[in-house]
């Protein structure tokens, strides 16, 4: 009898140890991924999912450097060629082994994906050397090969070949409508999807054969719930119904910080919020003095302090700190007196009227920011007629360039300075797609020339000096109105060590998450 009791106690103890080591994470985000296909949509939600269920060739580390994942090492063979060596012995969820054929398969899928083909356009070819070695060839020297390889999450080519039950190819990539790849996963990542009810819940289970044995992660089960309303999301964390939430709205930061059971982690972000001044719609904006006056009249620090509750970094350029092109000499230049002088010089001391549009549910406090800018511009006699609309209606209006001043926030998909210039400030060109989001019609051919140059050299130092000069040129032209970079925030229960897994790209590496009980 005694023996049995002892045995039971021993078993209980063993179970106990196991349960301390293996933990369940209940996480709540504002939305759940639209699809299980990593290449259906280029969005934060999709990339988060890809990092949980797939692995990229390389991934970003905390300092915007690169960490080897499925690519063990890489070297530049000549100006236009980079050679990659794959990690050996990596298995997909299906049991198939990873080799170069999967990389080639995935590469072609990327080139076919409407969302990703832009990022992968600079590549000319992928050449297989052997099962674990391949070369990537570009048209001309290309500096961002590794940046782009963070998007290459090899998919299981054997698993995704053939036809599904509906007679459609398993690797079919569709933006609307059902497809095999949009509801099935076979990756190499730390988790598999065990249950999914779209918009309600996704459950993940740890991949027992995960190749990265060094990963400290001890989360063996994840329950992912989208909670759309920010107050409810925060309440769920405070009530102990979930362990990890993102994003945390600025208004609730104090509440989370003052609570002993939860932690708040914040980080400077990379999404710049700006206004563009349309020179074709409003003649006054053609005058560099007027554009400068507007920049001098807007108090970025004030907006960050009062509206963003300190939860943003005031900026005077596109590139956030850490980017190659970030020019530390460029700082916000709020000076109302100077703004008035410039308006007078330009012959607008009486001011003028302009229209403005901003979304009201896209960026953090977007509507309030726009209203603040309106009142700041009123001080230099610019009368703004502001209209704010939901994002669904805002983007069509933006495409039409429907107002003199329009708000736009931008995150560089390549985590590189040039991406900002290509989309936001390059001379608009319908044929090349340059300046697609340049609603201001700002155009400086010199900056465009520098942009092209920086795109074709691989030496980081040279690129940095060119791109910093580009930032300076646009700053001097007052080509647009930079406001701030939105910060990032996550909240977690004590014991959930998110601090070491979060990053500026905002896809926490949950595979490496450690939960202490």
């Amino acid at each position, binding site marked *: 009898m005694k023996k049995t009791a002892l045995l039971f106690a021993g078993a209980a103890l063993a179970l106990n140890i196991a349960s301390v080591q293996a933990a369940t994470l209940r996480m709540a985000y504002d939305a759940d991924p639209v699809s299980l296909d990593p290449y259906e949509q280029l969005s934060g939600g999709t990339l988060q999912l890809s990092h949980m269920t797939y692995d990229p060739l390389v991934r970003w580390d905390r300092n915007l450097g690169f960490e080897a994942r499925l690519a063990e090492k890489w070297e530049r063979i000549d100006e236009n060629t980079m050679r990659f060596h794959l990690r050996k012995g990596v298995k997909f969820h299906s049991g198939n082994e990873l080799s170069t054929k999967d990389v080639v398969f995935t590469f072609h899928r990327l080139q076919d994906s409407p969302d990703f083909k832009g990022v992968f356009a600079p590549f000319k070819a992928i050449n297989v050397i052997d099962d674990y070695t391949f070369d990537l060839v570009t048209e001309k020297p290309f500096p961002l090969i590794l940046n782009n390889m963070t998007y290459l999450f090899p998919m299981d080519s054997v698993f995704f070949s053939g036809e599904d039950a509906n007679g459609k190819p398993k690797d079919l990539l569709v933006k609307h409508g059902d497809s095999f790849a949009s509801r099935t996963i076979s990756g190499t990542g730390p988790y598999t999807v065990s249950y999914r009810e779209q918009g309600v819940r996704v459950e993940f289970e740890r991949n027992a054969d995960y190749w990265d044995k060094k990963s400290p992660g001890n989360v063996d089960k994840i329950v992912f*719930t*989208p909670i759309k309303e920010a*107050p*409810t999301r925060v*309440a769920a964390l405070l009530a*102990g119904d979930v362990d990890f939430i993102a994003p945390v709205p600025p208004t609730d930061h104090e509440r989370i910080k003052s609570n002993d059971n939860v932690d708040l982690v914040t980080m400077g972000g990379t999404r710049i919020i700006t206004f563009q001044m349309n020179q074709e719609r409003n003649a006054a904006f053609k005058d560099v003095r007027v554009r400068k006056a507007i920049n001098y009249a807007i108090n970025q620090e004030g907006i960050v302090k009062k509206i963003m509750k300190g939860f943003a970094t005031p900026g005077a350029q596109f590139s956030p700190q850490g980017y190659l092109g970030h020019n530390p000499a460029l700082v916000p230049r709020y000076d109302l007196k100077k703004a008035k002088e410039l308006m007078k010089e330009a012959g607008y001391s009486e001011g003028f009227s302009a229209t403005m549009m901003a979304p009201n549910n896209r960026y953090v406090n977007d509507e309030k920011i726009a209203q603040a800018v309106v009142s700041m511009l009123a001080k230099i006699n610019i009368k703004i007629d502001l209209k704010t609309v*939901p*994002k669904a209606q805002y*983007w069509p209006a933006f495409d039409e360039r429907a107002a003199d001043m329009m708000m736009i926030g931008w995150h560089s*998909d390549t985590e590189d300075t040039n991406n900002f210039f290509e989309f936001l400030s390059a001379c608009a060109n319908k044929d090349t797609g340059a300046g697609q989001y340049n609603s201001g019609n700002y155009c400086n051919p010199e900056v465009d020339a520098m942009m092209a140059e920086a795109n074709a050299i691989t030496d980081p130092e040279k690129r940095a000096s060119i791109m910093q000069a580009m930032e300076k040129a646009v700053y001097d032209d007052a080509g647009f109105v930079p406001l701030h970079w939105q910060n990032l925030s996550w909240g977690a229960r004590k014991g959930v060590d998110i601090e070491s897994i979060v990053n500026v790209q905002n896809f926490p590496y949950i595979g490496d998450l450690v939960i202490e009980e």
Partner: protein
Amino acid sequence: MIAFFVKRFFQAVVVMFVISLISFSIQDNLGDPLRELVGQAVSEEERQALRDEMGLNDPFLVQYVRFAKKAVQGDLGDSYFFKKPAFEVIMNKLPATLELVFGATVIIILFSVPVGVYSAINPQSWFSKTVMGLSIIGISIPVFLTAIGLIYLFAIELNWLPSYGRGETSTVMGWETGLLTVDGLQHLILPSCTLASIMLPLFIRLIRSEMMEVLQSEYVKFAWAKGISPRRIYFVHALKNTMLPVITVGGVQIGTMVAYTILTETVFQWPGMGFLFLEAVNRVDTPLIVAYLIVVGAIFVVTNTLVDLIYGLVNPTVKLAGK
């Protein structure tokens, strides 16, 4: 009776036709669905190609006829976001919403009838006066605030009840229900109370004033004079006649309640069709929006029909199909 149903059926068809036409014609003003389907950096040509592929560039009539042809066969189109037939998506979410409405209805009936009757019989008591005062406050507080207040008190401070979601569910004969598990019932309490908070004050006031009026009527006075027991007078003679207008209003209000589920479900992340609709509007998921409006239109017609039937049972002088 049959004539009544046939008439109602044709009414329903007309209602749904009108709804589909209206919702179809507003869809262009909701925004561009493509923007929600593709990333921001996708080029204009790429988006136009997708629009062509999806038939979004066709003239209004072409699009409507294409929709209507499928709709008469029961196919309301596929949701862009869920990639499944919109009707199926809504039907999957319907149980959650109906259970929420059911929970709220139970709360309303349990509280409004006794409280309303009591305050009609004793209009001068302190309890009645307090209830009347509170109901004014209840009507004027927005649902959103009620919900957040309840979450704050019962989920965060007291930690008695869960803060969001539907909890554990079980499936009975194809119906996914949260009513059979303790966890599911716990999850139902706060959202139902929130939803009930909109209608409860209204019903208490309605029952009170109707009952007071009935108590003044000749036949009640006659009943008193006859020496019938107060219990019988209040609950058989008076209450039954009080309920007639209450049922009519109730029927209409159940429809309104479906509309209020949009707010309640959003705050509580309740996986029902109200929340689904709000999300669909945000994502410009037009097939889902159109399908939702049609289904809700159908719910209105059905509840009104049921109310008329019940009305006939409670008040035999009402004839349903004219003559």
